[in-house]
């Protein structure tokens, strides 16, 4: 029973210290909430109200009707009317508008013939999202055109967005955001946990006691697993409350996946802390994990669109696998048993990282 009571002694000590460390304690709650609000409200790939100017060279009844309908899509917001296409280009270059609409003199005739494009859109291609939105505009039905119905349009492919039919960004983002937030806090806490004791000299005391490295590691990890679970509950709660993000699959499955993921991150954090000499170094190493976890995990950009080399890096990161798990469970109502490879990877990652951390952390100073 001695090992168990020593582990519990470490757990008790960690909780005591955590409770007195207001900054860390605040990060446990504050970091997830702030990130949720930032990502949930700010990141919106479903773009609306793009600043738009129009050069209406036709000035006909039909063109005015077209402009009115364009405004009703809410995709664009008409902020200016100019004379020529050159004026539009100037506005684009200065960043005052994202889209310029050129309606040529012979607009009415072109609409009738349908052999040539009736309208030109000048789009700020420096932002890929805006370009994507402009492409959507091409599919805008020409309701004013009495000569054909909407179904008559040349559409051979129809897109049916499964699992997120309203195409709301928070629904896509928050399952991935759980992974990013847990990566950030879990690695941060543990990577600093041992380095801080080394810096403060506590480690020299600890390694002179009967405490073993494994007992120390396990004792340090347990409180943070609990914190990780609390953070998950917080994220799910806020996601539900503010962004109406569903959990379509089993909550139990989600928690099991999260436990494996938290354990993987904590063991990675411990590994970092055995390699870093100072808290600052630990932070630097954490950034090396965190950035790819955001950029290469499929959180920001579709995984399949990345170059092969980046995909290899992505596959190695726990967050990539966890995002697949959360999106599957939360949005697609998948069972954990259908997503087994990702869960197995997380467990394997934990075991390997823990072994390396325990091996690297010797009870010696040399």
């Amino acid at each position, binding site marked *: 029973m*001695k090992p168990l*009571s*020593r582990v*519990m*002694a470490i757990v*008790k*000590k960690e909780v*005591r*210290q955590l409770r*007195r*460390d207001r900054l860390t304690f605040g990060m446990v709650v504050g970091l997830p909430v702030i990130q949720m609000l930032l990502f949930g409200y700010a990141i919106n790939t479903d773009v609306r109200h793009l600043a738009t100017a129009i050069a209406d060279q036709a000035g006909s009844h039909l063109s005015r009707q077209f402009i009115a309908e364009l405004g009703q899509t809410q995709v664009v917001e008409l902020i200016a009317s100019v004379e020529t296409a050159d004026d539009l280009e100037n506005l684009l270059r200065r960043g005052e508008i994202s889209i310029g609409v050129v309606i040529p003199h012979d607009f009415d005739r072109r609409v009738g013939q349908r052999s040539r494009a009736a309208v030109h859109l000048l789009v700020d291609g420096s932002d890929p999202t805006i370009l994507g939105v402009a492409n959507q505009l091409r599919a805008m039905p020409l309701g004013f055109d009495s000569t054909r119905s909407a179904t008559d349009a040349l559409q051979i492919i129809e897109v049916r967005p499964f699992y997120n039919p309203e195409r709301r960004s928070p629904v896509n983002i928050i399952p991935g955001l759980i992974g990013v937030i847990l990566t950030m806090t879990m690695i941060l806490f543990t990577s600093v946990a041992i380095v801080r004791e080394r810096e*403060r*000299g*506590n*480690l*020299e*005391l*600890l*390694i*002179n*006691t*009967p*405490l*073993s490295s494994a007992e120390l590691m396990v004792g340090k990890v347990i409180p943070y697993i609990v914190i990780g679970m609390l953070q998950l509950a917080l994220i799910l709660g806020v996601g539900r409350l503010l962004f109406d993000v569903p959990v379509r699959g089993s909550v139990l499955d989600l928690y099991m996946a999260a436990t494996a993921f938290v354990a993987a991150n904590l063991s990675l954090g411990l590994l970092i802390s055995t390699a870093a000499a100072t808290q600052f170094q630990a932070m630097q190493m954490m950034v090396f994990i965190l950035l790819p976890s955001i950029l290469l995990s499929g959180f920001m950009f579709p995984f399949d669109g990345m170059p092969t080399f980046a995909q290899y890096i992505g596959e190695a990161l726990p967050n990539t696998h966890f995002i697949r798990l959360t999106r599957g469970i939360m949005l697609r109502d998948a069972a954990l048993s259908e997503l087994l490879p990702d869960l197995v990877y997380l467990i394997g990652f934990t075991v390997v990282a823990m072994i390396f951390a325990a091996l690297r952390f010797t*009870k*010696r*100073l*040399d």
Partner: protein
Amino acid sequence: MMSSDFAIEARGLSKHFGALRAVSSLNLDVPRGQIYGFLGPNGSGKSTTIRMLCGLLTPTEGTAIVLDTEVPGDSRLLKPKIGYMTQKFSLFADMTVFENLQFIAEIYSYPISKRALRIDQLLENYDLVAQRKQLAGTMSGGQKQRLALACSVLHHPELLLLDEPTSAVDPQSRRDFWANLFRLASGGTTILVSTHYMDEAERCHRLAILDRGVKVADGTPGELQAATGMHILEITADDPYAAQGAIINLKEVASVTQLGMRLRVLIPDSYERPVELVERALAARNVGASVFATAATLEDVFVAVTLETPEAST
């Protein structure tokens, strides 16, 4: 297994950090139940030796038997039997005095039924009753040091290793601290304490003087003082600086130290009639001074054994 009379027996213990020889071929015999001192300047290898003895550092060469356990070896058996007080305060600054003691009791698996009693006893013995609920980080140097000592003896270790325990406390705290050490030693605890204070070294039962990783002398303070191999002279002069100038370059003079209006002069005892020798040198420069021979203090011993020798300076 027969228990040895010595708590520590080290043979040829060395530790090299790259090209730096922190400790070279150290032999050490520390009798049980005594206070054994390590005297030496900063960087003389005191901390390195203590860390090797408790298994924190692996010796480059040599071995030691610490409480009948071989070092380097399985230090797990050794840990419960030794107490170690680090040079830098190493307890948890963001926990109270009581919480720190409680944590140490838990880590050493101190019997639960006796824990509360033992902690109360330590708070009493080390004058920390009033600080029971104070955060360790907010205490004074002396209080921190008493807490560190209390934590290192909580589990009744047979051997206590103290690495410069008094370097950050005031003289009164040092006196109280040594009173505590004597009480522990009388209870049978062997204590190895490193220091760079002469007055502390003088209180030890035995001591070893370390200089640049080499043990240059060991024995009881009395033995060391009797065997300096030096004449000790004291010169009282109106102008000690002039007196120093008159004798510093004599080939017989090994060392001159100024103490206020007095000079302490060490001359190897291979030279005879040292008083006359010095008086002649002073008279030649017309320096008015009185010279007499005196007994060696531990400081003289220290100066005598750590004198720069031609081999050592390379």
